[in-house]
């Protein structure tokens, strides 16, 4: 039962609208720094665009998707009207207001610090305040998810929480806690300087705070995708979830071990010692476990669907899968990109291998493949799946939807594979142009051109996505029925308490963060003489 459809649609539409803008900026960036573009007379424009692209794609777009999807899950999985609708709207408007507040200084060139902030670079105060508003808005959602689950538990004492809601609430807790790192950096360090109250800042400490957010945020982006893997895909292709308990274990593992691993982003940093670098590297290895479990469970769930359709043989069942079903297609593409992106990730998190690709285009390729590829393609699938239920209208043009998914997949491969390659050659990130006339850089020109073409394929796919959704708003009305989630093959009537509640795991998440971050943060904060003068952006 989806009652607050307008609320959910508002989240999705604002998310996809800003996604469209940021995607266009991204394609322009790819073009302008490739050999087919002409050099920018003012490279600063590139960094404005890059800051907007990152801020929208990192903070605004996925957060709104997770929120809208979260409200939809809460109402349909719990079969309970959303409690706190006014608060939900307040959260939404905070995000809209925060986004606008952040984008204005970016557009004026007063906040070209990139979404990763990079102090001692300091931009306009309102950029940071805008980002804070976005985070505060999303925290309202976190509270609402928790409250709605509590209300449901009171009405259903001891009953197993539906998997979709269990995972959704786990994702919201993960976000609440991971956002604390960047919040500390903003509130304690950056905003006092941007407001003119202080003139120095500890850049090393800021990088450690940011790493707290920077890695687990990826798992927050991932949550809606994994929820779709487990609770939408099997239903959409006519199968069952292989194991409900294993799914819960995977989400719990994400909650616990996605957090205390962020310092693998600082392997090359001078302000963190080798010991904690190693600890974080080892914990990062651990976070691959829930993904490996997921790959197994989802492949098994898909196989069940194939066998139910009459599939036979060791691999023969793959042929009978409903390949014309957009959900099946999106899942397959997502898994392929997750496979390549994940393999790249294992290299990044490696204590040793990181040095060969740190801060090169390899990294850009890696997170575009994981986030833009494996994760976002499932956001599309979620939107397609939910749309008829939100609009009360049909979404029938499957051929167009399949074309869109194919284009996104091809575009992402064409963009990111050459990126990985030039990264191995040592091409640095975040440069407004490259001197392809230099004989040492010239061999990279062809790869960069391919990436730029991939960027335009992605743009075409993104436009198609928006067109399909917009057309879905005007299609003939049709009753879509109630929104349902996949059920497990062996749905047990009871679930162990540990797999039905979050308290223990949240406690463990906080404890592990404190063990893995407490000492480095305390040491850096108490070391004298590490505060350095701020460098103001756009001040001249």
């Amino acid at each position, binding site marked *: 039962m989806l009652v607050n459809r307008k609320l959910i649609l508002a989240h999705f539409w604002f998310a996809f609208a800003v996604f469209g803008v940021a995607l266009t900026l991204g394609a322009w960036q790819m073009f302008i720094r490739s050999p087919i573009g002409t050099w920018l007379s003012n*490279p600063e424009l590139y*960094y404005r665009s890059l800051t907007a692209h990152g801020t929208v794609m990192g903070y605004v777009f996925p957060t709104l998707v997770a929120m809208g999807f979260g409200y939809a899950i809460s109402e349909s999985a719990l079969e309970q009207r959303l409690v706190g609708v006014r608060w939900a709207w307040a959260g939404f408007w905070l995000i809209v207001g925060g986004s606008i507040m952040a984008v204005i200084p970016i557009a004026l060139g007063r906040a*070209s610090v*990139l979404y*990763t902030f*990079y102090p*001692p*670079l300091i931009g306009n105060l309102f950029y940071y305040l805008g980002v804070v508003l976005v985070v505060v808005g999303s925290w309202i959602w976190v509270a609402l998810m928790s409250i709605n689950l509590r209300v449901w538990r009171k009405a259903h004492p001891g009953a197993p929480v539906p998997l979709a809601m269990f995972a959704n609430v786990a994702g919201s807790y993960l976000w609440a806690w991971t956002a604390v790192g960047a919040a500390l950096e903003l509130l304690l360090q950056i905003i006092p300087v941007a407001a003119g109250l202080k003139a120095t800042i*500890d*850049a*090393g400490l800021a*990088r450690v705070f940011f790493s707290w957010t920077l890695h687990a945020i990826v798992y927050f982006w991932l949550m809606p995708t994994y929820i779709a893997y487990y609770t939408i895909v099997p239903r959409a292709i006519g199968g069952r979830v*292989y*194991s409900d308990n*294993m799914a819960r274990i995977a989400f719990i593992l994400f909650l616990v071990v996605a957090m205390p691993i962020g310092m693998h982003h*600082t392997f*090359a*940093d*001078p*302000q*963190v*010692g*080798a010991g904690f*670098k*190693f600890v974080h*590297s*080892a914990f990062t*290895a*651990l976070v*691959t*476990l829930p993904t*490996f*479990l997921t790959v*197994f469970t989802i492949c*098994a769930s898909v196989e069940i669907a194939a066998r139910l359709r009459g599939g036979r043989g060791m691999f023969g069942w793959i042929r009978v899968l409903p390949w014309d079903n957009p959900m099946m297609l999106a899942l397959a593409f997502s898994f392929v990109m997750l496979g390549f992106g994940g393999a790249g990730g*294992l290299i990044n998190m*490696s204590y*040793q291998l*990181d*040095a060969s690709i*740190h*801060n*090169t285009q390899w990294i850009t390729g890696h997170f575009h493949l994981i986030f833009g590829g494996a994760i976002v393609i499932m956001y599309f699938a979620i939107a397609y799946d939910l749309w008829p239920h939100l609009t009360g209208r049909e979404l029938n043009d499957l051929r167009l939807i399949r074309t869109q998914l194919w284009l996104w997949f091809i575009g992402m491969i064409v963009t990111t594979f050459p990126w990985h390659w030039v990264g191995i*050659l*040592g091409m*640095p*990130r975040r*440069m*407004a*142009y490259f001197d392809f006339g*230099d004989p040492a*850089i010239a061999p990279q020109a062809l790869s960069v051109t391919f990436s730029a073409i991939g960027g335009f394929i992605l743009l075409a796919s993104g436009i198609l996505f928006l067109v399909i959704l917009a057309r879905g708003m005007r299609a003939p009305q049709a009753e879509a029925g109630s929104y349902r989630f996949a059920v497990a*093959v*062996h749905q047990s009537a009871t679930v162990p308490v540990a797999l039905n509640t979050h308290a223990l795991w949240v406690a463990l998440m906080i404890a592990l963060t404190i063990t893995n971050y407490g000492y480095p943060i305390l040491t850096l904060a108490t*070391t004298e*003489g*590490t505060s*350095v*003068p701020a*460098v103001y952006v756009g001040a001249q």
Partner: protein
Amino acid sequence: MSAEETHHSADVAARVERRWAAIFVIVIVMMAVLAAFAGIHRATMPQPRVETTDPSRLHLSGEFVESNLGSVLEANGNVTVRAIGQQYSFTPACIVVPADTPITMRATSADVVHGILIQGTNINTMLVPGYVSEQLMRFTKTGDYLMPCQEFCSFGHEGMWGKVKVIDKTDFANRAKAGGRLSCVGE
């Protein structure tokens, strides 16, 4: 399907699942052990120590004063390179080092966060103002290597490229005889 069969297939499912999980726990433990082993043997390892320095006084005193930047042949035959990054260049902009020699590079930033990456090698480190970065390196081939700044350092980032020139060991020793700090700026 009878209740007994359901029970049986649930057992099979659980067993297969446990086996898969066990295999990947072993894989993960192996990865961590390998990383620890390679690190302890110092085959490869990120910078282990934390050293601080005051970026606003770099030019006044200490090891990063201008006259001390560049390459120096130490008494034990090793080479030490000292460099700084600032918006938007490295000093020295061209670093000269000998081939087949253990080299220690010590570097820091005078303003914002920068990075040093030597293309075609595994030399890759951040320069964070307030802290000293140290990298051990050894080149086996002579030639010129590009050394871009790999971290966004504001509007001129795309123009911040340095160079490393690896020369023959004896050539370097000859140049070092005159004393002082060597670089290849202007060559």
